[in-house]
């Protein structure tokens, strides 16, 4: 299986204001793919949730710890992976936010957001620590941003 090089790689300090930076980069890439406003908005929002979780829960808000983000465009899929330096967690232990007893809880909707807005959400846990969440969504217009340049060369 060919390795797909990332279109973008970012490493940001664990500060909430950096969520805006990551979202801006991801949405700019998606705009080059000529995705519609709605797709851009929902993918951007899912990425925000992943980065927010990495900053808040993974890295405990410690700005010395980094969040790494990679964006790949592969055969009609957008794939965004977000890695933190945390200890990991058990995704199956997260309560269902749609359960009647949880509906009025202020927190606990981040993973649900991602799963609702993307086609596939996977968690990977490193042997040395760190959590990676991989978000995938099939898109209609998936011409690689560099396609035009490659055709010219």
């Amino acid at each position, binding site marked *: 299986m060919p390795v797909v090089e990332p279109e973008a790689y970012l490493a940001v300090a664990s500060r909430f204001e950096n969520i805006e930076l990551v979202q801006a980069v991801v949405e700019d890439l998606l705009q080059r793919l000529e995705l519609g406003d709605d797709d851009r*908005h929902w993918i951007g929002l899912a990425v925000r949730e992943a980065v927010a979780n990495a900053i808040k829960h993974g890295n405990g808000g410690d700005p010395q710890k980094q969040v790494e983000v990679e964006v790949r465009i592969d055969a009609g899929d957008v794939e965004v992976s977000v890695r933190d330096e945390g200890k990991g967690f058990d995704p199956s232990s997260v309560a269902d936010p749609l359960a009647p007893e949880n509906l009025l809880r202020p927190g606990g909707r981040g993973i649900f957001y991602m799963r609702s807005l993307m086609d596939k959400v996977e968690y990977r846990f490193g042997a040395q620590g760190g959590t990676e969440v991989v978000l995938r969504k099939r898109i209609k217009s998936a011409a690689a941003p560099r396609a035009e340049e490659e055709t010219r060369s």
Partner: protein
Amino acid sequence: MNIRQRQVGDVTVLDVTGKITIGVGDVAIKDAVQVALGGGARDILLNLQGVTTIDSAGVGELVSAYTSVAHRGGKLKLVGLPPKVNDILQITQLITVFEVYDDEASAVASFK
């Protein structure tokens, strides 16, 4: 994000514009509702017409605001949901919790 408070009869209206998102917008909603309650407000109408994005933290703050107002014996209702905010409330099923109105006059009248 920006929040402007105004009074329409007995109802305190909070006009919210921009992003209700983690770090800034979610705290601003909490603060605005607490200030309104502290100033004697009982019934609060959140006008979300100018909201562009709401993340899970923002949704959480709407829920917190709803329960804070309810605990004081008042009601918190929503008006002017942009389509993307409406979609989020549908997905999270919070549309079944909040009373939502299309126009301000109907929303204000509903508190009576």
